């Protein structure tokens, strides 16, 4: 178990200076995610124009892994279509659960590859993505990692 593999520079940087943090006025979609085990809470606002994720912002409190994951996700899916976001989610999910990281598809998201060596932390990394799914599905019910 190598901590440096979990807390890579990209993760530490995105935790210290999260991108797309805050609320989005006039967002068309919103979702809330909870990780009851560690008390992480995430609010996600999405400006969805047709199929296009025009903008998104997140707010909440969480550990370095969940904050960095939300930040990295926000960069990765901004300007993408729903279908592209869904493909990214499936690539991230695969990486977190043991598939070799598809660096070409994942880009900076590959920095989360070390999380799979820390099973207790996989939920931290996936919270943002589950919340995005809920926001895009538009059912408004809070999601939980449990």
């Amino acid at each position: 178990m190598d901590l440096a593999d979990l807390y890579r520079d990209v993760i530490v940087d995105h935790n210290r200076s999260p991108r797309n943090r805050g609320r989005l006025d006039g967002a068309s979609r919103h979702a809330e995610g909870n990780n009851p085990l560690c008390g992480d809470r995430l609010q996600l606002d999405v400006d969805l124009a047709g199929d296009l994720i025009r903008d998104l912002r997140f707010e909440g409190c969480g550990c370095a892994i969940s904050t960095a994951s939300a930040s990295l996700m926000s960069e990765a899916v901004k300007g993408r279509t729903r279908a592209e976001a869904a493909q990214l989610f499936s690539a991230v999910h695969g990486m977190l659960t043991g598939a070799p990281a598809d660096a070409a598809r994942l880009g900076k998201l590959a920095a989360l590859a070390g999380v799979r060596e820390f099973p207790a932390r996989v939920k931290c990394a996936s919270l943002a993505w589950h919340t995005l799914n809920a926001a895009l599905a538009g059912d408004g019910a809070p999601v939980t990692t449990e």
Partner: protein
Amino acid sequence: MAAVRESALPLDLERIRADFPALSRRVNGHPLAYLDNAASAQQPAAVIDAVADYSRAHHANVHRGVHTLSQEATALYEGAREKVRRFVNAASLAEIVFVRGTTEAINLVAQSWGRPRLAAGDEIIVSHLEHHSNIVPWQLLAEQTGARIRVVPIDRRGVVDFQAYLGLLGPHTRLVALAQVSNALGTVLPIAEFVAAARARGAATVVDGAQAVPHLPVDVQAIGCDFYAFSAHKMYGPTGIGVLYAREALLAAMPPWQGGGDMILTVSFEGSTWNHLPHRFEAGTPNIGGAVGLGAAIDYLGGIGQARIAAHEQALLDYATAKLSGIPGLTLVGTAPHKSSLVSFTVEGVHPHDLGTVLDSRGVAVRTGHHCAMPVMEYFGVPATTRASFGLYNTRAEIDALRDALVDAIRMLR
């Protein structure tokens, strides 16, 4: 004065640590520093061996057979009950009910004592410090009966406000349920005073003793409570076994809460009659091995002496408080003048979950999260804390390891 003399003798930590097989483990390349005792304590070989010996040689069902093994199992199980009775100084064996743990004990009181008695307008008092297991059973009871829950406030140190408590006690108070020691903050309540005030108003009292029994000598008659609940696994015994102490007069008037074998005298399709106390509340085959293990844990604590354990743990608490207070950005959560041996804290800019992972990589086991006390976290305005909780076998060197790992974690993550 005997207790003072006894507590003056320091513990032989090297010998004590050798009693606990798990403590010799290495975790992630480091010697294990097990500082999560408030969640569950490690077991000494005496407990492990007692349970194994029961399983190997004496296992049979209790209270049933005329054969030798059944009689041996019954003697061991009932022998453990007598050890528990002495351990908490209950007046009678009829007052000691074996349950799965503290949670089940509290639910038993809520459903068997509370549900037939409480009605709309009645009030149940808890404190803001309670573990979820001393909140949710009362919420369920309140929903079932229309009773209302009142909450005694705490202050910024984590001290339960006794004056506010006296103000809440009134003609509608039927029940007061309080933790003797807070699992999240370590606050120790002057529980006998809280109980006496409730009794003076005619309210029944439930004490959650899960965090008290490993650290303090407990005397239920001196406390004066009606119910006292605790778990074996926090006092160096096995999981899945705990105790409800219940004053005999109350227990005798309570209906069974689970039906089945062992809790009846006679069964027919026209109706059944209930067994004597405490068996009326122990439906089904009990956790015999667990009870044997709890008995062995009580013997183990008695062999060392609870006053000596308390003195050692208070010294660890003082040492940890001083060591951790010197870390920049670290804030202790819970600074009551009378605390049991745990430190709960936050570190500015570093989430507890990340701290927990870094500490684990250094072999230091702590608890991170809300500690099943979300109202406490809410009061202090934090989503979670990191908690290091000490037991009789912990050392200053382990607290040094905690401190060093914390400093490294902060350097890495902030």
